[in-house]
């Protein structure tokens, strides 16, 4: 009688679901709940600031949004290529995804710099400031964490360590990235659409 390792057990169980995917979906559910609360607070507080700047001072971040949403597409190309074993397309698409995400973050930083130093609009200026910076900041921090993970895989792939058998793990990470993008669709609509 031999001890059974976890990987072997997984292969022996009735083919249910991949634990990486299930785990990532669970994380997505939990994160969605946090975002839901911040979005609810944002929506409830629209128009409730007694004084100070209103959403009119915001300029719609069209370019960075296009970048972020496109990065989901390039991410999809990357993982599809990796599954087929096409390492060159994978690396190019992955780097493009990373770059587009970095442009998004850079753009957000530029927008904040302008708001804080030119308009004098900060998190404590008024209620709108508090809700705006918290919600956008929460999302941006999730993008940043995603970029760290993406960057790690990017470095590993440039070192030649990423191969077709890692496709499942990259797809799990891609799931996270798509989630971050989906959240941006909601946040963008609420902040730059509904609020203004």
């Amino acid at each position, binding site marked *: *009688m*031999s*001890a*059974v*390792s*976890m990987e072997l*057990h*997984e292969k*022996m*169980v*009735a083919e*249910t*679901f*991949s*634990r990486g995917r*299930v*785990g990532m979906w*669970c*994380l997505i*559910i*939990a*994160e969605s*709940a*946090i975002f*839901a*609360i*911040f979005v609810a*607070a944002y929506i*409830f*507080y629209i128009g*409730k*600031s*007694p004084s100070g700047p209103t959403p009119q001072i915001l300029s719609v971040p069209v370019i960075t949004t296009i970048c972020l949403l496109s990065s989901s597409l390039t991410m999809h190309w990357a993982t599809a290529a990796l599954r087929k074993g096409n390492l060159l397309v994978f690396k190019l698409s992955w780097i493009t995804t990373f770059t587009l995400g970095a442009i998004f973050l850079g753009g957000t930083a530029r927008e904040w710099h302008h708001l804080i130093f030119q308009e004098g609009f900060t*998190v*404590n200026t*008024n*209620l709108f*400031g*508090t*809700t705006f910076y*918290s919600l956008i900041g*929460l999302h941006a921090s999730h993008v940043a964490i995603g970029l760290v993970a993406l960057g790690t895989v990017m470095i590993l792939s440039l070192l030649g360590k990423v191969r077709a058998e890692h496709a499942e793990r990259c797809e799990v990470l891609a799931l996270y990235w798509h989630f971050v993008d989906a959240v941006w669709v909601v946040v963008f609509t609420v902040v730059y659409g509904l609020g203004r």
Partner: protein
Amino acid sequence: MATDSISLPLPKESSRSVFMDWLCTVDHKKIGIMYIVYALVFLVIMGIEATLMRIQLSRPNNTFLSAEAFNRLFTMHGTTGVFFVAMPILFGFGNYLVPLMIGARDMAFPRLNAFSFWLTAFGGFLLYGSFFAGGPLSQAGSAPDVGWFAYAPLTATAFSAGHSTDYWTIALLVAGIGSIGGAINFVATILCLRCPGMTLNRMPLLAWMNLVMGGLVLVTISPLTAAQIMLMIDRYMSGHFFDPAAGGSVVMWMHFFWIFGHPEVYVLIIPCFAFISEIIPVFSRKAIFGYPAMVAATTGIGFVSLGVWAHHMFTVGMPSYGNAFFVFTTMLVAVPTGIKIFNWLATMWGGKIRFATPMIFCIGFLFQFLIAGLSGVMLADAPFDWQLSNSYFVVAHFHYVIVGGILFAIFAAFYYWFPKMTGRMLSEKLGRWHFWIFLIGFHLTFDFMHVPGLLGMPRRIYTYEPGRGWEIWNLISSIGVIFQAAGILIFVYNMIHSYFKGAVAGNDPWDAWTLEWATTSPPPDYNFAVVPEVRSRRPLWDIKHPQDPDWKYE
């Protein structure tokens, strides 16, 4: 099957290596035990906090504790109870039992499992560090004093100077992340690692209930995390989320907190339902009655519990239709809960009930949970709640659920699974002493605690006026503490003594039917030498009754 596997003697190890072994372990059984021991230590601390408060309240205008000390004690007592006793102990049992009961080798993410435990543990140490920071120990240091639900604007810097509130916020934020990690593990393990033949329809109810609990944790802890981030922004970055002068809303904190807080209590009770659902059948010698209904009821409770939160806010001034909606949903959630009580009753009905210690704690649970649920229905009635809310009736109700329900179920679980975890039986004689003495104490304290509530005594008061008719009831409640403390001491002694001197348990001391009894007591690191294969909900029943197996009838 591994029913007759031999337990090989372990190689001798130096004590230093045993310490590192536990510190660095990713084995679900060791992590489970660490969660449980951690929670037991905090249970004793909670009891001491409660004892101090009950001494203060035994007489009107008593001066045993200052107002400040009392306010810190009830805040710490409540916070500790929910986050550092109940959640860890239930995560501990879940961690230990789920892989064993589904025939798996470990949880889905063992390293995440260890990380989650240590995060939770750190949260507790941070929170208790607050007693020693800041002010004098006689005033309970700088421990938080804003109540366990920390209503705004009492938590704003203007009303809560210093860092006491921050200990509350950060400790729970960290522990909350640990809980989410734990929940991810439960869901992934149960969905992905069941042994061959164990469809969702055949897995033990404990697995189902931990699945629902895990899903609920994912959705319910995050609102608290979100609210705490908002509070930190208010306190440290001069934010305005809960600042009424700037257009913020303090009612919003209440909504966010209770969107977490109410499902949280279902997170606590659902694993206890799991214990009852596993133990009652074994000691009634019958399969659980209505397995599909139990699954449906638990899932139903999970979903409906997400929509009842504002019954904690009936006095806040919501419009009448808002109040009415929450009356309806709250009363509705009592229906699946009642269904479960009827199913347990039907399981015992026509059975052959054996009154071993795990079973008598389950029977105590059934009677007490019934009463707790009915006092909950009273509180669900908004007009009745306009009198009862924030009074000692509520305190009596939720302690009835938590002590009379949850703690009794946990005691049952201890007596049932201690043999599996340690290889030794707990003393039945001491178990009975524990049960009866604790039962007397529980009823003395919490039955009579309902009365001051009905007579107008609010909660969270460090003392009270004489002449309001509250004195005798408070005194009786305080006397009950002595019996509860004695019961707990007997329990702790039983565990320590039995660990060394208890009767050897063997694989299956209770003649039970689920997979954890198919391996040794305690199980080897790898759980099962051969991956089990099952054909029904009670694999060991099938083996013991080959002429009448379950799969013929399911």
